[in-house]
């Protein structure tokens, strides 16, 4: 699977095409795109900044993809995570999974997102009318990750 950590935007269609173009062995493509929302609870978000740990971010995303590839019969995939300043409506993260069957593609994409949330070294800072603050990690995210434990 391809892993990219980048400040620039990504193009879902181009990424799908790079994975699937000319191939006839794929039965299912699942994509997940995470976007910056204009509201977080009651706070109106003006901008969001994503900080990351260069090197380790890529390493962790690759490890998560490897685990997913060992667990599900995937035919390929892509994970792109952006960093830097982002506006509401901007794309943050893209996960694409390919498989002969839909269950594997769905489950692997969800698994990658759940693990990525708690295990990839990225941190969100939100800028609101009341100032800036670091987003708190959610217990819920740990629980979602834990359901994949064997």
């Amino acid at each position, binding site marked *: 699977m391809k892993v990219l950590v980048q400040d620039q935007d990504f193009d879902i269609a181009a990424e799908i095409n790079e994975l699937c173009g000319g191939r006839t062995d794929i039965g299912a493509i699942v994509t997940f795109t995470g976007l910056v929302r204009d509201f977080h609870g009651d706070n109106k978000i003006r901008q969001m900044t994503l900080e990351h740990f260069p090197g380790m971010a890529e390493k962790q995303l690759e490890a998560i993809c490897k685990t997913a590839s060992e667990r599900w019969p995937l035919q390929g995939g892509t994970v792109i995570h952006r960093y830097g300043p982002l506006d509401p409506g901007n794309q943050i993260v893209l996960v694409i999974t390919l498989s002969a069957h839909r269950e594997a593609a769905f489950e692997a994409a969800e698994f990658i997102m759940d693990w*990525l949330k708690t295990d990839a070294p*990225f*941190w969100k800072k939100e800028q609101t009318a009341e100032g800036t603050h670091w987003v708190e990690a959610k217990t819920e995210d740990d629980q979602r990750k834990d359901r994949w434990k064997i």
Partner: protein
Amino acid sequence: MEIFYFARIREDIGHSSETVNLPENISIVNGLIEYLCERGENYQTAFKNDAAIRVAVNQTYVNFDHPVQDGDEVAFFPPMTGG
């Protein structure tokens, strides 16, 4: 030893990395944190709450009782919130 700080911890401490000569009596992450906290209030604030700290040694997540030695790359940061 190279130490990196990210996000809230980086802001509390006031810089993103530093080189530390590890004293001989320090052998685990917890000892390193105590040692850093002697450097000032900014470190004490950064490391106040164990539950809000994650640590990686040589880009691998470890617990606070993990060994550290000179030459290691250690990173401190809050729980992750990417995705």
